């Protein structure tokens, strides 16, 4: 397997000391964390659903509306110019963050879901035909399944699915077998939201490219936890959401190699994305405007820029090392609790602790933890095929971010024992 590859991606090599990270200082940056819920200090462990926002992001959005608010790319006046510079400036930050070759390759969208739908609706409709195959995996989030199903239904293509093992890793032999001369696209999560598995994406991309097949990576979960270099990965598309990386909701990014984006028809029609419009014919703008019809989420982009600055200020390697230590601590603590079972034990794993308790439904776990100030998710995590694989209706999930501590893991485990006590187990 690609163990060494994944390791190098997310933390310093074994033996080196992880860079020190002052968690208390980081926590001080997040106003929402400093509150009580039901009289208990809030322990926020639902970061895979959305992360909290540092003061810098909140202030950037507020400052934009207080000082610079205007529409972009059209006004001749000072505010419009400032708004345009800020908005386009964020594209530059995203380029550096992903190490994309050009800002033309970065499209602002609402989030990962819209990014994937965009690729399905444009790349997909232009290049995928009846009898073609789209290769997904069993651990995908619904947002990396349903857009492809919609496309497949429209054009008569087929969805193929790479199975997972019981530890939550892709069966790579099956991937290689399922990659055929009919495959037109591979779409796979970089990091699974339900299991925490870091997929061997380099190996996947290389094998796909050897077969002439482009690859889309769903980076919604990976972007906040793993340093991403789209040129080093050589992926064809990469999608992530601002709100999972300490930025605002309603803003996200689609990276696409310029050769694909140039080739793809527009997604939505409207203002901003055109060059010339008449009732007989319209011509489209250059990249990236071609894919950004209508007034974009300007303040959201400004907030995303502040979030990227914030993350880069700490450093993704330091964040990954810290989160890895918290996760390892949590996994060991979970193993020490009788009746608690972790779902997803991939060798390469980050951020996610999905679990079940004997005799207690995850929904009951969620309620009882909530009353102790512990915010976790209970449900199928928009990954029903994963639940089906494990024959579970649902799991409880704690997911960690840069501001979580071992003390919070202790609080979680004490909370879980309380759940068992309430149930008389």
């Amino acid at each position, binding site marked *: 397997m690609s163990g060494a590859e994944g390791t190098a991606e997310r933390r310093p090599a074994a033996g080196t000391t992880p860079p020190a990270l002052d968690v208390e200082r980081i926590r001080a940056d997040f106003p929402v964390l400093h509150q009580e819920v039901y009289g208990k200090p809030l322990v926020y462990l639902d970061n895979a659903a959305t992360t909290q926002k540092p003061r810098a992001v909140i202030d950037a959005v507020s400052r934009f509306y207080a000082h610079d608010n205007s529409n972009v790319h059209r006004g001749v006046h000072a505010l419009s110019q400032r708004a345009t510079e800020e908005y386009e400036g964020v594209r530059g930050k995203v380029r550096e963050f992903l190490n994309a070759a050009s800002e033309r390759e970065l499209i602002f969208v609402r989030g990962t879901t819209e990014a994937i739908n965009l690729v399905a609706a444009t790349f997909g409709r232009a290049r995928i035909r009846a009898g073609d195959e789209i290769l997904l995996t069993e651990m995908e989030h619904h947002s990396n399944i349903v857009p492809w199903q919609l496309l497949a239904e429209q054009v008569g293509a087929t969805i193929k699915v790479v199975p997972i093992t019981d530890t939550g890793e892709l069966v790579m032999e099956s991937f290689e077998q399922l990659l055929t001369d009919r495959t037109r696209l591979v779409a796979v999560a970089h990091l699974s939201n339900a299991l925490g598995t870091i997929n061997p994406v380099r190996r996947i991309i290389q094998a796909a490219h050897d077969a002439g097949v482009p690859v889309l990576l769903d980076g919604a979960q990976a972007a906040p936890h793993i340093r991403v270099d789209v040129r080093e990965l050589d992926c064809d598309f990469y999608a992530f959401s601002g709100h999972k990386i300490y930025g605002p909701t309603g803003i996200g990014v689609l990276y696409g190699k310029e050769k694909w984006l140039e080739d793809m028809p527009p997604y939505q029609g409207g203002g901003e994305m055109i060059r010339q419009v008449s009732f007989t014919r319209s011509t489209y703008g250059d990249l990236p405007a071609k894919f950004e019809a209508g007034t974009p989420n300007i303040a959201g982009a400004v907030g995303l820029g502040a979030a990227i600055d914030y993350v880069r200020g700490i450093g993704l390697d330091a964040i990954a090392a810290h989160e890895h230590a918290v996760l390892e601590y949590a996994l060991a603590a979970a193993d020490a609790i009788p009746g608690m079972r972790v779902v997803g034990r991939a060798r390469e794993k980050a951020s996610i602790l999905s679990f079940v308790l004997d005799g207690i439904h*995850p*929904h*009951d776990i969620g*309620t009882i933890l909530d*009353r102790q100030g512990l915010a976790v998710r209970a449900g*199928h995590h928009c990954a029903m095929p994963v639940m089906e694989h494990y024959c579970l209706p*649902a799991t409880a999930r704690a997911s960690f971010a840069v501001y979580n501590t071992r003390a919070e893991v202790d609080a979680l485990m004490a909370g879980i024992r309380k759940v068992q006590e309430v*149930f008389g187990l």
Partner: protein
Amino acid sequence: MSDLRDLYQEVIFDHNRNPRNFRAMEDANRTAEGFNPLCGDRLTLYLKVDDGRIVDASFQGSGCAISTASASLMTDALKGRTVEEAEGLFHGFHDLITGEGGAPVDLGKLEVLSGVREFPTRVKCATLAWHTLNAALDDQGEPVTTE
């Protein structure tokens, strides 16, 4: 955490651990399926209705303690009731759980679920069985969901 004790009363644990009427019914003449897509709770409700009276009620499925106990208590409460009385119980139970509504109905044992009122995110767990009952009585072919 006294409100947790209000939600998770001993009777609820008892019905969760040992759900009553937990079986398929061969000679049921009304059945319906309920599904809560949010948490994955599923149940199939079986009724035997004879001359406007529910002579037997049972269920199968999987769910959280609240939804399992609710289905168990409901099937117990339904046996021997007329369809009209069952509809009255449905409305009374709904009002009990949501804290809304008109004149209180005597709900007997079902009142152990009143604590759900303080847990808005769990109302759908408690009402899943009852919405499924409605579907069974209306004989809707489609599975009902709480969404």
